């Protein structure tokens, strides 16, 4: 056996990683190697109801958040959707496709440690740099497209919330009156903490408060909201051509994230009751 023949007093060698060439990260791993993927370690995914809400079970183990808290969600439909996400992982677990799980983890852990007021303030702050309020002057085709597509949404928001928003072609953006901000702040305050995390997420993805509110109020679909958010990109794609590995990749990812955020908000803020009407004879 080889170790019986090794001379005494020989130091044990460090593992192979130390012999790696090229840039090496802090844990001795090569810097550009893809991270080791987690294999799917469970067979069945099921849901159970606990004290705080609904929990997810991977085989017999209970799912936990990254900060090791127990994963509980208030809504059964949301738990089912999260369980479906875990169940649809094939050989390896791809966390970047599990948007609802990520949103639930964010809501449970609150890693940025923001309270409700700070979340609302961050959301309303986006109004000053809202995408649909920033217009170009040229090329005229794009300016026309922005007018035709974005003006109806702005008009809807102004009518629905009884505020003044307007649009602007200057670099400073539109001048949003304080009363408008107050209206949105008090409207967003009516959502609970979980729904607010979702709303702030959707606003960050779409880069627009107005588009997010029209999506959450069910005025437009997710596909339409994403299209309006990427209006200039779509214009350039139609002009210069589509690059699948960049444009379609970004489009699918944005759609997935926006859809997940919207669904999350709706499932966290609904209270469904079934009223059976009496049949009239």
């Amino acid at each position: 056996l080889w170790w019986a023949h090794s001379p005494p007093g020989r130091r044990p060698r460090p593992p192979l990683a130390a012999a790696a060439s090229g840039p090496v990260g802090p844990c001795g791993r090569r810097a550009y190697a893809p991270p080791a993927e987690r294999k799917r370690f469970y067979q069945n995914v099921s849901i159970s109801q606990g004290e705080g809400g609904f929990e997810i079970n991977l085989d017999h183990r209970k799912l936990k958040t990254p900060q090791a808290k127990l994963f509980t969600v208030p809504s059964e439909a949301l738990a089912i959707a999260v369980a479906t996400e875990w169940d649809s992982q094939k050989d390896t677990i791809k966390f970047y496709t599990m948007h609802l799980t990520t949103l639930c983890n964010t809501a449970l852990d609150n890693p940025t440690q923001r309270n409700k007021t700070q979340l609302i303030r961050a959301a309303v702050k986006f109004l000053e740099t809202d995408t649909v309020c920033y217009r170009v002057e040229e090329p005229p085709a794009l300016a026309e497209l922005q007018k035709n597509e974005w003006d109806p949404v702005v008009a809807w928001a102004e009518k629905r919330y009884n505020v003044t928003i307007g649009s602007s072609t200057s670099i400073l953006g539109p001048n949003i009156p304080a009363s408008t901000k107050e209206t949105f702040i008090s409207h967003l305050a009516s959502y609970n903490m979980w729904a607010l995390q979702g709303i702030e997420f959707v606003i960050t993805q779409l880069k627009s408060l107005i588009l997010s509110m029209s999506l959450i109020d069910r005025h437009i679909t997710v596909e339409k909201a994403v299209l309006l958010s990427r209006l200039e990109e779509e214009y350039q794609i139609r002009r210069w051509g589509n690059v699948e590995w960049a444009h379609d990749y970004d489009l699918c990812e944005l759609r997935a994230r926006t859809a997940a955020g919207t669904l999350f908000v709706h499932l966290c803020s609904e209270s469904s009751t079934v009223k059976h009407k009496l049949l009239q004879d």
Partner: protein
Amino acid sequence: MAALGAPLRTLRALLRELRHAAGRSYRDSPAYRHVVAAFRAHRVTSEKLCRAQQELHFQAATYLCLLRSVREHEALHREYHGRGERSPQEVAGLVGFRLPQQPGGKG
């Protein structure tokens, strides 16, 4: 209200996506049962514009968009995303070498 089309079309597409996601036993999955039960419960209504029905339809369309775009995103990722660097073993294998297996480590 958003332009959603017929609820039946959304339901069929959603069930198809669930089938792609789940595999063989998709009919037993909790998601399938929940979706079918929810659609059945909201089907019978005497009102022309039932708000709960529209809410459910919007949620179903959103979930359909989520499943579809996750599937397409994963396909694009598999096709186009880089695989990272090769390991030293693979690099040696490119030219037909093997890394030495020295029992005591490199001298």
